[in-house]
């Protein structure tokens, strides 16, 4: 890994780029736009999209996603530091490939584009059972999920196996990393995902065995206690969350499912906000990537809310906290 001072040039460039990130007031202005076209125009005025003047919202958002990685390539930083950010996407592709291989049908839209483990490569690996082509942390989960799907046709079981492996991989990457931002991101990601699983399990009254299998050990709290609380019921889960310092999550849960989803994403952004004051490490770069992805997600929420004529209040409940 490069020394922290090797990132001086990249961090200074990121500081300038951060001035172009959307702020909370920009999001409010978009929400207050009269329709989707006005919200899209606001984004284009902020430099979103490219010179071709495309008016399709999804195309503009894709261009913005591509810009993130183009910027990182220009900075010539070691891309392995971003591996942990792509883990949820490649594990999602694994789930999609397991299901497409075992069930009939072709599902182009459900795969994330990925240079190494996109749709074609993931399907080839599953069809040829070439698990050695996968990263080591994925191999056992891929085989287990495939066999579970083949024998039981239980898509949820395959999902649990892959999701749990994904959480374990994120936690392991966090513990292995020397970069504080990666450790903080991993801790927050695993904790929030565990809480999400526990909430859904409590609502659908899943068994304790299911919870123990689905929840991954994390540094923020004891997952066995979380599993027990979720198994006992929603009230018990709320009490557990409040006692472990996640009172805000409990409040969001009481409010609505979308408020809870918003809290989950806000936690990720809050975990990386201290990187705004870092001078010379990979932290500000990772935080910038997460901040850009967060604002693209928020722009998508606002645009689709406007397209579906949701009220400003409903859209605002779903918009995420911005990094700047």
């Amino acid at each position, binding site marked *: 890994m490069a020394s922290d001072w090797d990132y*001086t*040039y990249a961090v*200074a460039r*990121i*500081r*300038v*780029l951060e001035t172009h990130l959307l702020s909370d007031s920009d999001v409010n202005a978009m929400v207050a736009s009269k329709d989707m076209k006005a919200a899209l125009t606001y984004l284009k005025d902020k430099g979103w999209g490219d010179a071709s003047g495309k008016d399709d919202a999804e195309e503009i958002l894709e261009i913005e996603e591509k810009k993130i990685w183009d910027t990182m390539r220009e900075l010539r930083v070691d891309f392995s530091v971003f591996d942990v950010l792509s883990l949820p996407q490649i594990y999602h592709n694994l789930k999609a490939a397991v299901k497409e291989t075992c069930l009939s049908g072709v599902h182009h839209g459900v795969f994330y584009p990925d240079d190494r483990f996109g749709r074609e490569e993931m399907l080839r690996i599953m069809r040829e059972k070439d698990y050695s082509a996968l990263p080591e942390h994925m191999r056992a989960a891929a085989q287990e999920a495939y066999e579970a799907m083949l024998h039981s046709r239980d898509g949820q079981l395959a999902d649990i196996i892959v999701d749990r492996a994904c959480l374990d991989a994120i936690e392991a990457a966090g513990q292995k990393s020397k970069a504080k931002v990666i450790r903080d991101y991993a801790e927050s990601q695993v904790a929030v995902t565990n809480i999400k699983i526990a909430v859904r399990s409590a609502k659908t009254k899943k068994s304790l065995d299911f919870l123990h299998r689905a929840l991954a050990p994390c540094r923020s709290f004891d997952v066995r206690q979380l599993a027990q609380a979720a198994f006992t019921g929603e009230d018990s889960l709320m009490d557990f969350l409040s006692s472990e310092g996640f009172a805000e999550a409990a409040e969001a849960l009481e409010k609505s499912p979308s408020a809870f989803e918003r809290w989950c994403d806000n936690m990720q952004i809050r975990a990386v906000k201290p990187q705004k004051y870092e*001078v010379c490490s990979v932290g500000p770069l990772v935080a910038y990537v997460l901040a850009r992805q967060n604002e693209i997600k928020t722009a998508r929420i606002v645009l689709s809310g406007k397209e579906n004529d949701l009220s400003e209040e409903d859209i605002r409940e779903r918009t995420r906290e911005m990094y700047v």
Partner: protein
Amino acid sequence: MSELGMFFGLLGAAVAVLFAGAGSALGVGIAGRAAAGVVTEDPNKFAQVLILQLLPGTQGIYGLLVGFITLSKIGLLGGGDITVSLPTGLMILAACLPIGIVGLISGRSQGECSAASIGIVAKRPDQFGKAMLFPAMVETYAILALLISILAVSNIPV
């Protein structure tokens, strides 16, 4: 013995110029990388970040100044038939150490501080004055070392 005295006197001048210059080179290099990053995205900030980049360059000048005074003291500049005894040579070397060592450490530290201040200018160019103060604080200690080195070298009887 007089050659040895001259050698240590010369070593003092070398220490002042070498270490203080190296500190400045490191500091200006670090701040320069940050400045280049900002100018890549916003060329209008060139003048502001250039000033911040140059701040750690002063330690090298201080080292050079002490080096000149030392060379003059031991008779290598301006001629004169001067004999430098071994104790005098060692005293001159000791007198040059403050600017050498403090110049090296403060030059690098000031470069790091300048890089951080360049980050302030990148986001808030209107705060340039405040951004300049932070690395300027580091300069204080280089100036203190310079004073002691000049006073000591100047007052050593040859």
